[in-house]
């Protein structure tokens, strides 16, 4: 049921996976800003230092995000799958939570910001 080629393939894929995750880990650090995008456009940027709940009205959909103790999670969404609710809280730069049906992306970035909230 296994040929030699399979084992080489599996090893190559796993090695590639590990290499990529190693490369990515250089960009990881505790972030301090949450950027929310709706449909590819920035909805707002929020500092992680202040606990709060943000309501996003994106198109006809509603999502709610909670910033709590420097981590971000999706607390409410009107999407059918609810995958975004189940995703673990994020806190490091580059980490994301996505609500595909509602086209919403939550992303942590590490830019230092002077402002507490920026809405565009």
């Amino acid at each position, binding site marked *: 049921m296994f040929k030699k080629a399979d084992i080489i393939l599996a090893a190559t*894929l796993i090695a590639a996976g590990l290499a*990529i995750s190693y490369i990515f880990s250089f960009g990881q650090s505790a972030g301090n800003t949450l950027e929310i995008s709706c449909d590819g456009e920035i909805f707002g940027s929020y500092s992680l230092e202040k606990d709060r709940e943000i309501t996003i009205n994106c198109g006809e959909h509603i999502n709610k995000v909670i910033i709590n103790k420097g981590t971000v999670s999706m607390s409410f969404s009107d999407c059918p799958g609810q*995958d975004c609710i189940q995703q673990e809280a994020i806190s490091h730069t580059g980490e*994301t939570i996505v609500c*595909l049906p509602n086209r919403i992306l939550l992303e942590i970035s590490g830019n230092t910001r002077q402002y507490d909230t920026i809405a565009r």
Partner: protein
Amino acid sequence: METPNKTKKITTTALLAALALIFSYIEVLIPFAPAIPGIKLGIANLAVIVVLYLLGAGYALLVNIIRIFIGGLLFSGLFGTFYSLAGALLSMLIMILLKKTCIFSVTGVSMAGGVAHNLGQLFAAAFLVSNIKVFVYFPVLIISGVISGAVIGILAYLVLKKLPIDFR
């Protein structure tokens, strides 16, 4: 030995498409690492791979399309369908190509298929939210694709071995 006639091929395809749908439903019931978007057990691929090796690429593609569109109507909705379609098309392409080379066994083809499926879904996700950062999840999805692909591949191998001779 006669090659299976058309009716037999069509009914086999229909049977396995129905099976693929049931597998999809079971997958929806089992919550599997929801922390990582797009991670799936890929059990439905078992039916697809068996058809691929039994009846060829055309019928396998048919099974995939049937189960994605009907599955979309039944369970996952428009976005689920788009997402699955992206994964399945890339996965099918890779599996058909690899099978043609005859270098890999069912297991190898299934592993590559699993990884390609996840990659296709990542592309769909990146497109939908217009952001390339979702690829941060790619390493995890490679590894889970290899593991679930290997398991499904072994199961497919066992199933194919047990099928009656008049099918091949």
